[in-house]
């Protein structure tokens, strides 16, 4: 690549901490880059005005608000909870109240996304369903059936024509928005294991993202699990090339006992992941064309969710210590790790 490289210190710069007050499970930066939303185990969502101490509490869920999304215009905020409900909010309201509540799934809601055209909301949950909703009125538009385990995540392609979903067993499906037909099924089963010793399923598509050009899908989670109940396994990312149909696993130089909780694409040809577990917590960057990590930053606390802003100049990480940390990212690619 022709871009100059930057060192670790130069590529990230701490740009604020936001103390929610309970362990965080989710975070989202709004499309305008004005606000950061954090979801905590206290069942609250807090909206922070980035760069200031201004905060507003969004109270409505009766369980953990695991999935957060903003519409493309930056006017509506959608939250999905383990209470099986989707809630519509005025993203900028000075005193936020639920505008609409939808009993959306029979079981936890684990993923929510808004389409780029501002028409639809997609949700995914433990009832093995992906559902499409009207952003305008909350009406159910389409129900997508085919997953055979809990659906962990959902994302739209940039053209809004396809919705991508990933489940507990690492099955990644692509669905046509127009008619709900499943047009592709991809194998990320490396992110799943049935642990015969503990007699339980472990893994899942913890992170899911589609690249800005629509060519790549990344699914992230844990692999090589040797002890499900102690969380002994390695963080991993599966990268799918939707054009060629090929896939490969993005690796770390040293196997980290951890989960890659969130993944996203960066316009500099990078893949960015939030990794956390017994082996530590890291912000990790891969070259989209490479296989092993390009760069990583050790984080001060376990981080279980991540959000890049629309310009990819800032990243927010949701901490187990109840603090969301924002880092400003460099304009050039980071220097490869030593």
């Amino acid at each position, binding site marked *: 690549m022709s871009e100059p490289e930057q060192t670790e210190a130069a590529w990230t710069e701490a740009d604020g901490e936001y103390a929610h007050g309970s362990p965080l499970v989710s975070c989202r930066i709004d499309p305008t880059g004005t606000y950061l939303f954090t979801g905590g185990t206290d069942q609250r969502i807090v909206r922070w005005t980035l760069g200031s101490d201004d905060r507003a509490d969004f109270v409505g869920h009766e369980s953990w608000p695991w999935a957060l999304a903003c519409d493309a215009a930056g006017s509506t905020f959608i939250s999905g909870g383990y209470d099986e409900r989707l809630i519509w909010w005025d993203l900028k309201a000075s005193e936020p109240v639920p505008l609409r509540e939808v009993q959306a799934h029979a079981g*936890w809601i684990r993923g929510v996304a808004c389409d780029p055209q501002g028409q639809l909301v997609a949700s995914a949950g433990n009832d093995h369903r992906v559902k499409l909703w009207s952003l305008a009125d909350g009406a159910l538009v389409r129900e997508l059936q085919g997953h055979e385990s809990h659906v962990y995540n959902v994302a739209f392609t940039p053209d809004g024509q396809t919705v991508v979903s990933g489940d507990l067993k690492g099955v990644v499906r692509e669905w046509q928005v127009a008619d709900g037909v499943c047009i592709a099924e991809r194998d990320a089963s490396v992110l799943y294991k049935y642990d015969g010793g*503990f*007699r339980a*399923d472990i893994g899942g598509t913890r992170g899911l993202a589609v690249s800005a050009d629509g060519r790549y899908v990344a699914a992230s989670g844990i692999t090589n699990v040797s002890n499900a*109940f*102690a969380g002994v396994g390695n963080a991993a990312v599966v990268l799918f090339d939707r054009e060629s149909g090929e896939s490969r696993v993005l690796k770390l130089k040293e196997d980290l006992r951890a989960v890659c909780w969130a993944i996203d694409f960066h316009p500099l040809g990078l893949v960015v992941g939030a990794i956390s*577990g017994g082996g530590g917590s890291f912000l990790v960057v891969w070259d989209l064309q490479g296989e092993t990590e390009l760069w990583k930053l050790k984080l001060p606390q376990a981080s279980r969710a991540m959000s890049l802003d629309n310009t990819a100049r800032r990243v927010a990480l949701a901490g187990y210590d109840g603090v969301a940390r924002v880092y400003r990212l460099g304009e050039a690619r980071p220097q490869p790790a030593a």
Partner: protein
Amino acid sequence: MKCNHACGSQEHGLARRSFLGTMLGAGASAGLGTLVRPAAAEELQRQQKRVLVCYLAGGVSQLETWDPKPRTDTGGPFRAIPTSVPGVHISELLPHTAQQMHRLMLVRGVNTNENDHGKGSYIMQTGRRREPSTDYPYMGSLAARLLAPEGAALPGYIHITPGGGGSISAGEAAFLGPRYAPVVLGNGNPPQNTALPDAVSVTSDAARQSLRRQQDERFLRRRRTALTEAYTSTYDQAAALMAQREVFDVSKESEQDHERYGTHDFGRHCLLARRLLENGVTFVKVSHSNYDTHNENFNFHIEQLGEFDRTFATLINDLADRGLLESTLVLVLSEFGRTPRINHLYGRDHWGTAWSIAMSGCGLQLGGTVGATNDNGTEVVDRQVDGGHLFHTYLRALGFDPTDQLTVDGRPVQIADPAAEAIEEVLA
């Protein structure tokens, strides 16, 4: 005078013991653990009381089952739901069990103060802490000794495990002797070596057994000892068990029942437990694995309790409908609970300080709770009990006086821990 085998060979002895151990864990230990008041035991045997234990191995979370604390810092993501008993709420992960709450009693103030798997399991199944000098029998072995009819063809204590092969877990019987050890049905399979080999016909087997009896009788006329008698009775018990092999065949139950209990292993094992209890087995323990959720506690409890809930509720309902619940003590146990604190892996760790169990049947007061923890479940604030209290309560429910004594090597040993007492509130 000690009586050796006639051939005098060590190999012979080992082979014979191996067979006996695999088959029954049978009775070479007669005379150990003699009850001081045998008449009382005979009366209880006549009443045909039984015990069913659902053992949730690894330590089920009390916060995800019997003592939810929603909207607190320790509560986790699950909500509490109402039950068939007004005012009693349990975790939303147990919707079917919630409808059986009028047949359950929750003990919410358990403090065993033990966070080790092995030691916790011992406390919950013997009612005592480990002592260097003495091993005490598990509840199942004690029930087999005190409740099972003399000469019963079926083992008094059967343990259905999630996987692995069948075996005898001799240590659980402690001083009662291996005769009262559990027969382990690995994955619910029948006891090993209870089917005639293909090469042996029923007729030839009968002739073979007849010859054995003749030789035994001849031998006993000259060299009768407790051990030689035990060997002979073991063969007779084994033959009786082989004749009842169908009792272990859960496929004989209806397809509808298989569907009701669930097609997973735990469903099949609980249906087998019902079959065994109906056929007179005194003590059945069904283990469900695994709840040792240091990582991803909530996902794993969805999965494990998703199996447990409907199956357990169906079993309780069936025992009640069939008139068995009155005479069957049902317990849902683990070695401990799980920490109120949620760790960074979304897990909960070992926690014996403030947790819960569930009980049913056998004339207990049902449809309520006893004991309580504080708002976020970090300590017991009302009616704290430990394994000893629970053990006393089980024995009382079964009709025993827990202060009765067994004679072990000539010294008296109280059946239950002398330092504890029963939870009177749950006894009728």
